[in-house]
């Protein structure tokens, strides 16, 4: 199974996991890591490397970071190539729920990353506008 490392500013990453567990049950090989504004990049990097070591089951780790360009994602990007990881940004609850099921069958990190990005993007919508359009069509 591909490991899953949630990264965020503040408590968001842990909240993502806690919420997903409530919806679909326990997550194997998954951890949350919060970046605090007190920490230096080296400290964040060291904690990230330790977490990757704990959750890598041989297929590496997919890092799901809260936002593109954020410190957590930037530190993870520095580790690409040095550790068996890939990095996806813009983490959301739908992406995490998708990961829960997709990780059971998909063993390629790149494939899992692509699926999660696509699923995350599909879940962003102007929903009420969509509703109006549907109602007009009907």
């Amino acid at each position, binding site marked *: 199974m591909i490991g899953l490392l949630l990264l965020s*500013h503040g408590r968001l990453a842990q909240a993502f996991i806690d919420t997903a567990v409530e919806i679909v049950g326990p997550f194997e090989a998954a951890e949350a890591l919060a970046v*605090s*504004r*007190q*920490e*230096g*990049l080296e*400290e964040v990097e060291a904690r990230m490397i330790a977490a990757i070591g704990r959750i890598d089951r041989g297929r590496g780790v997919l890092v799901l970071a809260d*936002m*593109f*360009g*954020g*410190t957590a*994602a*930037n530190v993870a*990007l*520095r580790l690409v190539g040095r550790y068996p990881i890939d990095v996806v940004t813009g983490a959301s609850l739908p992406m995490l729920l998708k990961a829960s099921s997709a990780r059971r069958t998909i063993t390629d990190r790149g494939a899992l990353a692509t699926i999660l990005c696509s699923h995350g993007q599909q879940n962003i919508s102007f929903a009420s506008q969509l509703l109006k359009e549907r109602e007009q069509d009907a």
Partner: protein
Amino acid sequence: MPESLSGTFFRVDPRLVHATLMSGWVPSLGLERLVIACRDVAADRRLATICRMSAMDQVLVRCVREEQVSDALAEVRSGCRQMVLFVSLAGVERALDSGLQIDAINVGHLPRADGTKMLVPAVHLSAEDRAVIDRLTERGIRVYVQPLADDDPRDPLTDELSTSDLQIPSDLLSEPDLPPDAGAPEIKDDSKDRVAGVLEVVNERGLHLRAASVLAQFAGKLAASVEVGQGGDFVNAKSLLGLTTLGAGPGTKLDVVVTGPGAKDAFEALRGLFARGFEEGVGRGTGA
């Protein structure tokens, strides 16, 4: 962050291009370009690429060594709104030693490490950091701490003033031997009032470090806020560093504004302290 005449801002933040910068500072200052001043980033293609990616095409990003900042700033039209990001205070000094001229620098993020003291959650200062801040101040550069664009800028040194921190002889920082009538006035906390007036610096050496320390400690005991300034530029009188930047020599007439509970009594007590030359007496050549 105060408006920069040249449209160029300077900040210490080892996170470089990241969320606080792109979501806060870039829009609030209307920045068009970021100059990353860090020899490690300039020499590491991966790190430079991460910086450029993180800017998401909202601003231009240029990565240079600290020694190249002046040249990098001159590459664009004048008036271009730029921010120079340093990873450390030491990096700022390297840039200055190579000819960069700046008037103010924002310390936005310095992480905790062994031997550092927390000033605010995002800024921790080591003894060396404080020494650099002293040297920057001596060069006439205003150093202030402001992690977020919405934060109030604050003075990095006076908030944790202690003997060892500033390497000022201990007798200068001990409780000044004020006469009984110079103690903090009884606070009648029944009004939020404001008293302003002009007070003259009458001691022979002016508002030098010791005198400024006496004034800052005196003002620090007051419940009211005290601002001191000249020509419309005010500093917080509870800030030693702020007071020393006034450069108020003997005979200088300072505008003093006291706001808050007990303002009237506080102003009178300050008038007494000024008149006594901050307990140094009245010098020659002053009007008092």
